[in-house]
């Protein structure tokens, strides 16, 4: 029982970080970034390359910090190359899906080309096991469970209190009114992508510490994030986060009680049910 | 209750968006073969009223709509058109990548259920009526503003609607085109189509309507002949604010 909850909270934390980045970009720009999973993978690879003895061997702290800086830049570059040229053009939504799919293809194969297909693992930030309320768990799991809400809380504060965080929300809610306040749309879009990529990078480092690092490691979490977003509705941070933890827990419970092979069936059924009952997402707003 | 003389009867229609009541308990009727004008300041709820009547893209919270003796406030929007209630849109609207004839053909095939030669004949007749025949093979995107407006009307008329809702047909037209439009509206009416007309250009609206309904704050303010409406101090207030109502009375 308690191990199910731990597993659910760990997945939920990771999904929440991934999905909130997707949701943020969707809210502000109205496009969906299919390369988000590949960004996550890139973040994990950079951290691995900088920290691992097989790479630069600079230690985990340097690896994680480099990865975070890299992610901010990568998000910005991705925006400039794969999103900005098509914004405001007809069928921008569809075209950006394509360009970001192509971007994901590029990044994944670049990783494959550069680092090979052999599995890699990132050192854990903390090692050993700890016991919380009578439940033993890997310390890294606990770190993920604690760190994700802290980061999401930080994101919420950034969006509520800072000038640029407010600007991101303003563009999402009424971009004309935002322009009339002097908000630089372009710069804010860039920032939104950078923040979103940073969150993906954190998720990548977390996954890298718990599981393996591979060029395709981003696609499964991205798929779960899709489910989360369908569940929670796009554009509302609390809805996305709640849905992420729900999916994480459902997945963990079904793997434990029904069997891991049936988890896709369970998720599938849940998805269809949501579509039938609440087409705007379980927690989503009517358009 | 409607008698056979009434083409449309609207009772207690209402719609709210959050705390804002966009259309508030609006009731009115249109007689067969009549042009009923709708006037009112910006944001009075006129276009919202059209959206509710055609259930496209929003549906009413309250009230009912009886069209040609049949309740239509539960029908899906494409069935409302098939039932004979057609609307136009305020913005320039067309299937811009299709040809003029193809635009009209869709109304004939999917609205009136026509096929083959019957559809072709209906399309040609509608194009002729709206003076679009020479342009029939052009892409709709190449039309002028007035051309697009006529195409929008043609794609409705091809299904011989009993009632046509026109949303600001004169916006963006020059004065010559406005004069042509006026003749056109009257001609449509003379051919037996009842018309519900929203128009900001009041001289045009007053010039063609038998009766005019004025809306303000989502409500029906008043209704009467154009001459009565133009003299009504409440209407003048609605447009100009609380200006010198006395001098208006004196006039």
């Amino acid at each position, binding site marked *: 029982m308690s191990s199910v909850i731990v597993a659910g909270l760990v997945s939920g934390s990771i999904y929440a970080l991934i999905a909130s980045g997707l949701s943020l970009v969707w809210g502000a720009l109205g496009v*969906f970034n299919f390369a988000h999973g590949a960004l996550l993978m890139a973040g994990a690879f950079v951290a691995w390359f900088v920290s691992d003895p097989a790479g630069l061997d600079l230690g985990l702290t340097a690896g994680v910090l480099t990865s975070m800086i890299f992610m901010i830049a990568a998000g910005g570059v991705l925006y400039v190359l794969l999103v900005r040229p098509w914004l405001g053009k007809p069928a921008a939504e*569809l075209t950006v899906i394509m360009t970001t799919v*192509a*971007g994901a293809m590029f990044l994944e194969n670049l990783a494959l080309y550069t680092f090979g297909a052999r599995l890699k693992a990132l050192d854990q930030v903390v090692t050993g096991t700890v016991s919380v309320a009578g439940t033993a768990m890997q310390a890294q799991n606990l770190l993920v469970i604690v760190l994700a809400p802290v980061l999401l809380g930080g994101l919420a504060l950034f969006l509520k209190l800072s000038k640029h965080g407010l600007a991101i929300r303003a563009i999402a809610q009424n971009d004309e009114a935002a322009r009339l306040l002097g908000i630089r749309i372009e710069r804010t879009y860039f920032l939104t992508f950078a923040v979103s990529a940073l969150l993906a990078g954190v998720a990548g480092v977390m996954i890298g510490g718990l599981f393996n690092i591979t060029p395709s490691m981003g696609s499964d979490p991205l798929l779960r994030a899709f489910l989360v977003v*369908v569940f929670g509705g796009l554009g509302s941070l609390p809805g996305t986060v709640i849905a992420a933890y729900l999916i994480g827990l459902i997945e963990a419970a079904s793997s434990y009680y029904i069997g891991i092979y049936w988890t896709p069936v369970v998720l599938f059924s849940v998805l269809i049910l949501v579509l039938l009952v609440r087409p705007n997402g379980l927690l989503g707003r009517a358009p | 209750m409607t008698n056979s003389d009434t083409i449309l009867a609207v009772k207690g229609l209402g719609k709210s968006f959050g705390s804002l009541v966009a259309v508030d308990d609006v009731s009115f009727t249109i007689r067969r073969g009549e042009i009923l004008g709708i006037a009112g300041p910006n944001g009075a709820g006129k276009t919202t009223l059209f959206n509710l009547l055609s259930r496209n893209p929003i549906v009413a919270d309250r009230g009912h709509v009886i069209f040609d003796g049949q309740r239509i406030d539960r029908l899906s929007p494409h069935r409302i058109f098939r039932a004979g209630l057609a609307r136009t849109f305020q913005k320039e609207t067309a299937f811009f990548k*299709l040809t003029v004839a193809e635009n009209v*053909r869709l109304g004939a095939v999917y609205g009136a259920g026509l096929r083959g030669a019957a559809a072709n004949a209906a399309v040609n007749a509608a194009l002729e009526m709206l003076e679009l025949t020479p342009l029939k093979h052009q892409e709709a995107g190449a039309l002028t503003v007035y051309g697009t407006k006529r195409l929008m009307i043609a794609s409705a008329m091809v299904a011989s609607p009993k009632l046509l809702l026109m949303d600001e047909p004169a916006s963006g037209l020059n004065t010559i085109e406005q004069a042509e439009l006026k003749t056109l509206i009257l001609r449509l009416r003379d051919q037996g189509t009842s018309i519900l007309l929203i128009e900001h250009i009041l001289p045009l609206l007053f010039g063609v309507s038998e009766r005019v309904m004025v809306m303000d704050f989502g409500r029906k303010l008043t209704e009467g002949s154009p001459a009565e409406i133009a003299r009504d101090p409440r209407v003048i207030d609605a447009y100009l604010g609380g200006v010198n109502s006395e001098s208006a009375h004196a006039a």
Partner: protein
Amino acid sequence: MSLPSTPLRLAAAVVVLLLAILLPFVVTGGAAKNLVVLALLFAVVASNWDLTLGYAGIFNFAHVAFFGIAGYVSAIATIYFGLPVWLDIALAVAVVAVLAGVTAALALRLRGIYVALVTFAFVQLCVALIISQKWLTGGAVGLVGVPDLALFGHRLSPSGPDYLILAELLLIASTVFLRFLVRSDFGLSIVALRDNEAYAVARGISATRQRVLAMVASSLFTAAAGAVYAHYLIVASPDVFSFSLTTLILSMVLLGGGATIYGPIMAAIALTVVTEQLAGFGVVRFMIIAVLIVLTLRFLPGGLWSLGERLTVLRRNSKQGIGA
């Protein structure tokens, strides 16, 4: 929707037909033939996807799953139930058509991007399902042993020209079907819905009905191609559902040009051949293709087909002395 003039089109048709007749005689080498069979089958998949993605403007990402599921239906029907060949293809088409209809009816309750997300999730869950239900599907290895097709007692031989001819016939039939469809009133109606739904509905077009029909129509030849593909490879494999195949076929639709039918067909053939030519580059070829996709979308938004159209227009203009 400008197309070349009628005599030009007729000439093109004759050339294509001649090529089709010559192809089985020219391409005889094993590897080359295999490549052409794949290219032709992918052309069927890509051009049918164009119906929903390009013409109807539905963000449907489930299309490649129709191709894959048809293969599994064929494999299961023949291997477990001993259904005669050909009949299994018909069954696959029927099952996939129903599935496409149900998927469409469910997914189209949503709008825009949500359709993309749900259909994408649908594909990924299909593959998860297939891999997890090993007893039926053979799991990650796939279901091996799909029998060869046979005609009048003659087994279609994978080494001879048989499958090449079959793939050609399939592509020709599919293309005739698609062209007929998009030029019909039905075709006009889905384009109308794509370009302005509120207006289309206000002219009597049922949005749900037409879009579900479009999804079903696009699934028919896709499913047939999927079943033939399984027979040809004698295996139904979960690889078909992979992200990279989806991306590859998607890029065929886009590089060829949406809403043209012919564009995706040409791009499918070109891209299959180019991918093969780049095989020496290993994984770098996918990076090259990714860059090509982005550059095409940037500088040729209408795809390769629009390049052809532009050239036609240019030539026509220069003939009339306008372009000079």
